[in-house]
């Protein structure tokens, strides 16, 4: 289990997506915590993917999750959001990307305050924005509030990785554990490089990988390629069986830094034992808000 100082350093010098297993999983709360630790080392920049449509944060129960920003931080949002904020900002870049909540900009914080984030609407725009933060404004550490259960954009950004936030209670424990096993296993798949290679016996799965498609994979192939880990609709058991027969590669890959688990009605020790029993290799942060 990772300690706070240890996981803080995982954010440095990289673009890190914070993803969640569902809406209101507590990403913003975790981002605020992570940012406060990162600031002890260097100034971070942060953004989100798309519009933050989540109405409240399940961890602190607040009506609208807000990001606290400190002088020197880099933020990606829109001008109307700057106007709404109690902070003060200096505009560093205005992009020709228009969302329903305004034109995307990058600003640096002059006076501390809270800010609502609005992000670009596609991966190309996100890549351009992060490149600008890295190369023009020299923000080496960028945190991206990712959309719930969407890991696709991670592969689109160079030198990126992710933390996956999971809210777990008794009711979703088994399902969450299965989901974590799947995500962990998928993060270890190799990236499919030469898609046109005819040297290897490579079978490309069109669309989602479903149980019925598994049966239709010709046996003469030794490798199968799936477009995206999110398009695998198998249980962990089914995927594990499949991986014994074929080498599985994905076009889009992601680096999973760790799971951030927020438990309800489950003891940390009990969960930790269960996690180990399931042989999940990914690193684990349990209840970062517990004293």
């Amino acid at each position: 289990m990772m300690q706070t100082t240890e996981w803080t350093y995982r954010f440095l010098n990289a673009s890190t997506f914070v993803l969640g297993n569902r809406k209101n999983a507590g990403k913003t709360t975790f981002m605020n915590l992570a940012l406060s630790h990162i600031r002890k080392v260097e100034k971070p920049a942060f953004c989100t993917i798309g519009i933050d449509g989540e109405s409240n944060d399940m961890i602190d129960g607040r009506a609208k999750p807000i990001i606290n920003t400190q002088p020197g931080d880099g933020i990606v949002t829109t001008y109307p959001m700057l106007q709404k904020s109690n902070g003060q900002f200096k505009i560093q870049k205005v992009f020709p990307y228009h969302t329903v909540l305004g034109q995307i900009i990058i600003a640096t914080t002059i006076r501390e305050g809270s800010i609502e984030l609005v992000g670009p609407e596609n991966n190309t725009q996100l890549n351009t924005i992060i490149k600008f933060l890295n190369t023009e404004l020299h923000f080496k550490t960028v945190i991206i509030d990712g959309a719930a259960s969407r890991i696709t954009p991670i592969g689109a950004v160079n030198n990126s990785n992710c933390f996956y936030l999971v809210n777990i209670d008794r009711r979703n424990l088994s399902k969450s554990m299965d989901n974590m096993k799947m995500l962990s296993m998928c993060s270890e798949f190799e990236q499919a490089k030469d898609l046109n290679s005819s040297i290897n016996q490579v079978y490309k799965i069109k669309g989602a990988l479903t149980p019925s498609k598994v049966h239709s994979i010709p046996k003469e192939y030794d490798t199968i390629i799936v477009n995206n880990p999110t398009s695998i609709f198998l249980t962990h058991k089914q995927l594990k069986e499949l991986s014994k027969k074929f080498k599985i590669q994905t076009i889009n890959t992601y680096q999973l830094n760790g799971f951030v688990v927020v438990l309800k009605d489950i003891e940390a020790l009990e969960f930790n034992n269960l996690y180990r029993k399931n042989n999940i290799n990914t690193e684990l942060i349990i209840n970062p808000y517990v004293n």
Partner: protein
Amino acid sequence: MSIKRVIEFTDFNWFYTKYKPLTPYGIDHKERYHFISTKSELEHIHLMTNKMVEFIQSDETSIVKVEHHLSRIDRLNDLDKVEFDSADLFLIKKLLINYKAIYSYFNTTLNNCIEMRFSSLQLLEELAPDNDFSESFYLSSAFDTELDSIRKKIANLNTQLSKIKQSTIVTLLKHYQLDFNNREFILVDKSILNTLDPSDLVIEFYDSHMLRVKPVFPNSYMDGLIQKEEHLNVEAELEKKILKLLSEKISKEKHELKRYISDIEQIDVLIAKARIALRYDLIKPEFDNKTLAVKNGVFLPLQLKHQELGLKYKPLTALFDSNSILLSGSNMGGKTILFKTIGFLQLLSQMGFFVPAQKFQTQIVDEIHVLGISGLHNIEGLSSFGQEIHNLSSVITKKCPMLLLVDELAKTTNATEAKAILYAVLKHVTLNKNITGFFSTHFINMPEVEGVSKYRMKGLNKSEYLNYCEQNTEQNISKKIKLINTFMQYEVEKDDKKSNQFDALTIAGLLGLSNEILKHANDYLETKYD
């Protein structure tokens, strides 16, 4: 006129992707594929490109600096609106900074030619009241003393609030060993509930094991927050006032700003054109000729392919003495390449580029049409002959100056009628001097048409080829094609009617047609043409 077909036929986008304006305005201009048919406009662009080439050659460093500033420019939002926000002001300030810098790098001569003039120093200074001329913008306190004063009050309150918060956190840490540093709440074990004082902590249910606790801040903290909110409202009003004033100033200068954008577009496009002219050693085309002349004209996309395959590329040199050209020659002898070269050079010229040649003399046309080339857009339901006639009819009767490139007209119908159609069209072109028409044919003994100039591709160098074949045998098809290319003389010459060139059989032999069939074919030719 749509130039889509000639772009496709000449593989023009191969060249166009190498032409790289740097600003959003230059890129917009590029994407419009602006085909120019006004002499004065073309001559101005070519003159300016020439000046830019000279400028690059004489002061490369300044041009690199100009390019740096061009690449910094972002697209401005609407300049016709009444109220501008800080994002708009950022974009305008950035434009002014970079325009001013570009203006300073051009020498006086060039500035006069482009008519650059920077007259917004005052506006720029007003957008940077604190002398911050970096590419950034915010409503600085230097804009207004009241704003400065209220921000100082907000800053003081922030300091006070921070002190109160920190003091509360220190007390809670001391009293309960709960560290609220960097945390707005903490989850604690339910077993300590009885030790928690509600006047120190907000205590909420979390789950059956844990409680969520938050610090209770003293009333002075709330008072501070209320006061801060009031100050923030005043700050917002003052900011609005400043934005209004700046908006009025910008509205007054919007015509100047639009002119800067127009200048930027022009400079960007000209530098990109000059860069590509230097990269490919291009020269200025000449437009006053009634007929077309090329000296060592290069069809760049093909030249590159030849280089990749290790083949020798022969540039085109030709002086066409009529507006109606009939071109004959062997299969694989380069007729289509000649058309592509002519189309490519003409298109480049009229899109304001210099051309890859030692000399290119032509006239300005309104339209360029490519007909009879398979693989280009077809109308569903029409046969290839029907398609060809439809395309021909739709352009040939137009009265505007045009360049027509027609490959083997009516080749899909019977030879007798095809010859008649070709004869008639050639005659039409000779009578309509607005058309410059190039027609390729395989027909031998086409009747003479007054005003039509006949040319032919030189074809295979048979003696050298046969000499080579006596000593070598080649089986591989790509090597065979390379061999044809090696011995093919890609040159155009006046068709003097003294000899017939029958290269097709030689090429067919090289490509594997049996000796027996070839003998029958040669016997037939001897009987017919001896």
